[in-house]
């Protein structure tokens, strides 16, 4: 257990401290949220209609951005080799890496998400749900995205490849989260969408590490 905790604190410290950490993701998120009204036009009616969805998609893209650092760095400097030798099973190592990613990037993004949604014209009452969806969706994005990051280890143009692999896998969480936000905005029951998003995140947490560990072993073999 203490090994797992040590690994978690290492992952969070690395993700937080090196290369700008969460600021880069939040900055990218702010940039996408700024570009949106520039592209669609600033009319408040049009903007507020798409605000929750736009904030949600920008979040998925920002989650994508930090994925290439998840395994690539440890793969290149040999730390991943050492982790496979440790008594902690590789599946757990992968899960902890994704959890660290979630703490260091998805949580700050979830803080920023309500601000972005409101700035785009969403109702302030939406803020708690945006935060909850961003937190839950971030879990799904980290664990599903980790599969793509692990599979593209050692590939040419790994970052772009990760995006191509992961984006089709992001379809269900994007739909469920967007559905919940949309239902809340129009006063419909939103719990179903949020519950499905949580279910998808739970399945990703349970099954993702198995695929990630298999992909890491393959890359290191």
């Amino acid at each position: 257990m203490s090994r797992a905790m040590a690994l978690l604190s290492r992952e969070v410290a690395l993700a937080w401290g090196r290369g700008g950490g969460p600021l880069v993701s939040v900055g990218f998120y702010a940039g996408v949220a700024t570009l949106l009204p520039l592209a669609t036009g600033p009319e408040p009616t049009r903007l507020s209609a798409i605000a929750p969805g736009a904030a949600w998609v920008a979040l998925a893209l920002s989650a994508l951005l930090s994925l290439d650092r998840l395994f690539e760095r440890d793969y290149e400097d040999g730390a991943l080799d050492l982790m496979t030798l440790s008594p902690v099973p590789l599946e757990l190592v992968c899960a902890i890496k994704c959890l660290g990613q979630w703490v260091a990037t998805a949580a700050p993004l979830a803080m920023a998400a309500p601000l972005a949604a409101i700035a785009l014209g969403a109702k302030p009452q939406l803020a708690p749900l945006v935060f909850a969806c961003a937190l839950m969706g971030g879990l799904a994005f980290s664990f599903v995205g980790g599969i793509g990051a692990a599979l593209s280890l050692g590939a040419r143009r790994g970052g772009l490849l990760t995006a191509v692999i992961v984006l089709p896998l992001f379809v269900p969480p994007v739909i469920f989260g967007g559905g919940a936000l949309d239902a809340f905005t129009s006063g419909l029951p939103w719990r179903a969408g949020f519950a499905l998003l949580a279910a998808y995140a739970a399945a990703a947490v349970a099954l993702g590490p198995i695929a990630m560990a298999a992909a890491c072993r393959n890359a290191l073999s």
Partner: protein
Amino acid sequence: MIPAPAFLSNPERFMAFSRWAAPLFGVLALALALAGLWLGFTAPEDYQQGDTVRIMFIHVPAAWMSMFVYVCLAGASFLSLVFRHALADAAAKACAPLGAAFTFLALVTGSLWGRPMWGAWWVWDARMTSVLVLFLFYLAYMALRASLDDELKAARAGAILALVGAVNLPVVKFSVDWWNTLHQGASVFRKDGPAMTSDFLWPLLLMGLAYTAAFGSLWLVGIRAQVWRRRAEAAALRAAKG
């Protein structure tokens, strides 16, 4: 399912089998397609859709195949991952471009059919979206295999991705259905029998069989090409070592 791969898992036996099976399936596909197209073009017009209903004979079998080929891809990937069999991997690799082609055909003919019927080239309807996501899966699979240089690593990484996709695709299908539905429901495979006149059903089934036979033929040709390529590479390696 299992006995056939067991028999064919011997590459020599596979090459002997596919030498005559591939052209046989090809001829069968051609004959079935000719019969299906003949019946399709002589079938009466639909009372609502007019002549455009004939697009169905191209479109619906392609949509069936797009899913069937993914099942083949996932099955071959599973066999290659578990038994580490080179032929299973060649089968998975040969599946992907064929599946992508069938999916692309389904999307294009669907779009051409949608314009006169729905008045739009593309609508974000549940079935169309899930087929589009399936197409993206095929592209991701091919991109992953193309960007890993080591053949063995590419095979295993591709197999993992194919299985992840096999788990994920039903969820995608469900999520997209939950999101929106406009496309016509199932008209052939239903509990109360097909909701379609036999004038349309026969050409549709013939075309479905023709597509399946064509896939079988092209798949075998693709696997044979992989085997030959590997043999050529091995020969080149031996020659280089002198």
